């Protein structure tokens, strides 16, 4: 019965209701235990699939534990961060909490709304409060998600930047 149920769900483009299933199974003595099998399937899923209850009935979906893999099939490969975005993230990481005008000061150019949005959507920066100065500008900080992505135990674990002189030699190298 479990296989029969799976065959039906797998071949159906839309969710199946109990009524619909009853219409298919009822009257067939070989399908007597289908309701028990359905409940079992709901509880345990099957392989990489789980049966979920949606408005229109029941439907199979891939268990979220396979998300990372399924994403490789369906999600376009990520594009590298633009230089502007990377610089903005660096200022926030090293200077936090920091206001947008301050970021612009560090970078020497205006910071576009898109860049801030992109970093927020990525889950790497967030607003921690407001500076108590005229205009009360938002203070930006990095998130735990940022630390996680870069495998950092804490904000303090950001690599130290060498002194200016060393940096300069580095530049010339």
């Amino acid at each position, binding site marked *: 019965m479990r296989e029969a149920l799976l065959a039906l769900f797998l*071949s159906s483009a839309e969710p199946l209701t109990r009524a619909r299933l009853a219409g298919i199974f009822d009257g067939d003595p070989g399908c007597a235990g289908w309701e028990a099998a359905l409940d079992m399937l709901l509880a345990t899923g099957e392989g990489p699939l789980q049966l979920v209850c949606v408005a229109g009935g029941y439907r199979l*979906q891939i268990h979220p534990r*396979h998300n990372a893999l399924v994403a490789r099939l369906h999600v376009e490969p990520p594009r*590298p961060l633009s230089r502007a975005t990377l610089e903005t993230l660096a200022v926030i990481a090293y200077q936090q909490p920091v206001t947008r005008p301050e970021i612009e000061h*560090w970078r020497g150019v205006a910071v576009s709304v898109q860049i801030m949005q992109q970093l927020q959507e990525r889950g790497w920066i967030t607003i921690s409060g407001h500076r108590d100065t005229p205009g009360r500008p938002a203070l930006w900080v990095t998130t735990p998600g940022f630390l996680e992505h870069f495998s950092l135990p804490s904000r303090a674990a950001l690599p130290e930047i060498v002194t200016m002189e060393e940096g300069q030699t580095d530049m010339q190298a």
Partner: protein
Amino acid sequence: MQPWGWPMSGTTAESGASAAPVRVHVQARADLPDGLFVPPDALELLLESFSGPLELLLWLIRRNRMDIRDIPVAEVTRQYLHYLHEARRRNLELAAEYLVMAAWLAEIKARMLLPVPPAGDDTDFDPRLELARRLEALAMVQGQAAALRTLSQAGRDFWPVCPALHPDLFPAPPPVSLADLANAWRALLLRPPRRLPPAHTLVHPHMGLRQRMVEMLLLCRREPRPWYLNELLPLRADRLAVAVSLLAVLELLRQRALALVGNEDGGWQIVVPAAQVFGS
């Protein structure tokens, strides 16, 4: 010369027919009556089921167990015309192509009566060859269509799996490393000198007019003596701070919170009006 009116390119049929010659085994079913007998009501159905005169012709040839490569044109033409005649007699609608085909058959028949030139190219001369090619092409298409029909079809013979949904997927993080981040920060630090960060300007003696007015008033009240103007202006300040302080003095004078008094030098000084000193 193209004796019939259908679109033709000529090349395809020839290449197709020669590339894959069709062997036509004419094995009509034994239970099929010979000759021209068609049940009266069946003629209409029969003609409707043909998609054109060529198909009717092919059907006739197969039914008479004739060889496509060696068509007895006279007999086929006779039968073909008979069907056409029957159809017209029963007022059945016939497409014009059926008549074009009849004309072509008649022409082939006529040409076959001419003597064969002794050294002539046979393929060029035998008018039946073009007909045979067309019939073979159609026979081949029919075979291919029948072959397609034998294939399993989705939704009839098998059901593919409908893609299962998956939870919302988030785009993979961009490939950026900690080193990239640190390098970006270092590059920023190494850039040519910038103006001081805005955080520093906040402790710079630029300040609001109102705040400067308050500070000035407090100073004058703390030491209620006549002040020279330059004593009230900030020391070593930039132009903006001086300007704001000047504005503050003028505004306080306008509001009569401060007043000007003459001194013995013939100049003037700034004082807190007497009433306010005692009032505060």
